[in-house]
């Protein structure tokens, strides 16, 4: 087995782990580090449920090898604490079953940080990366816009 011992910066902490080069970031977050906020969905980069941040930008953690994350700053939903978008999801009822919610929140949070003046087109372009099977799209849009307005 081709394994490597690597140090990853995850949610501000250095974590030393031994991984297969073929392990995705999603797999090691959930199975080795117990960070189960990033959800496995399609495992094919289509659904966005596994979205995390790499250096502040959204990344589908099923599309990244763990070894590629060396030297990057990884943030998972567990690393977001009392952010405005988390509160906005609660206030706007922006979910039903909640499975897609961590991925949506990670993507929305990055959008708000990178484009605080995002227009409708930018919001749509970014959020097309995530799928919600409960179809809470209107409420998610309202949640994002409520935070952008406050900014």
């Amino acid at each position, binding site marked *: 087995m*081709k394994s*490597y011992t690597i140090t990853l910066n995850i949610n501000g902490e250095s974590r030393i782990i031994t991984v297969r080069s*073929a392990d*995705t970031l999603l797999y090691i977050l959930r199975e080795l580090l117990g960070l189960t906020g990033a959800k496995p969905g399609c495992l094919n980069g289509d659904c966005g449920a596994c979205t995390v941040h790499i250096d502040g930008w*959204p*990344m589908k953690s099923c*599309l990244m090898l763990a070894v*590629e994350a060396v030297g990057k700053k990884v943030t998972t939903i567990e690393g977001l604490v009392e952010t405005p978008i988390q509160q906005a999801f609660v206030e706007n009822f922006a979910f039903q079953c909640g499975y897609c919610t961590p991925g949506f929140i990670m993507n929305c949070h990055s959008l708000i940080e990178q484009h605080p003046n995002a227009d409708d087109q930018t919001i749509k372009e970014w959020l097309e990366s995530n799928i919600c099977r409960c179809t809470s799209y209107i409420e998610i849009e309202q949640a994002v816009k409520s935070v952008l307005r406050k900014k």
Partner: protein
Amino acid sequence: MLPFDFDYYRPETLNDAVELFQYLDQQGKQPMFFSGGTELITLGRINLDYTEAVIDIKEIAECKMMQVSDDQLLLGSTLSLTKIEEANLFPLLTKTASEVADHTARGKITLGGNICAQIFYREAVLPFLLADSQVLLIGPNGKRIVPINDIFQGQLRLERGEILVQIATENRFIRAPFFSVKRRQQWDTGYPLITIAALKIDQQVRVGISGLCPFPFRSKEVEDALNNKGLTAEERAAGAIAVLPQPVLDDVEGSSEYRIFVLRNLFYDLLASLDRVQV
């Protein structure tokens, strides 16, 4: 998670990457250059791709370059499509690339990865075909600069162990009026049917098409038909359709008849936009 194991290398220089490939190739490791890596990760998961050695080139300085000069734009092959869109230095490329996959995935997918992929869409190549761009390659026989239209025939004809490093595009093409549309069978997020990219330079329209045939292409015959100014838009589109490369795809995303129907209407829109010829 992939069902097979491989060695992972991250060389710091182009020469190291090229030498490593040759060494691993001699060892029978079926080495693979890896940039965004989305294709290996998604196809490898279902046993449609395989390697025993991954050479990750995306941190090599020359491959990450983005440089504007007086006469040209230089783009490194391992820039992510998102980085290219955010910089927006080549509006036709921005528009065409922004239709690939989705926004988050484009943070991983790279310019060179899209162009050299197995997936047949490879839309990111279209603007460069239209702009007669030059590609910088490095391989076992050294560096070479080649016009993209000489080396891209359905796919980029790299030699074994060769890397696409950079693409250079003259500014006059970057400033040219353009038209770029991606049509999907369903909604805005369904799988793509046809992407058409066009620009107008020296009073002539240039056209590149992806999703119609099992390869992206630019065709002189198609362009000649569309530029036949003595004819109506319907006649020009019909002339272009008569000289399309073959085969036209016929699959679950769309029958060949449906694709031709969509293409005909895209030609009308293109001619209205760039040549002000209405149907």
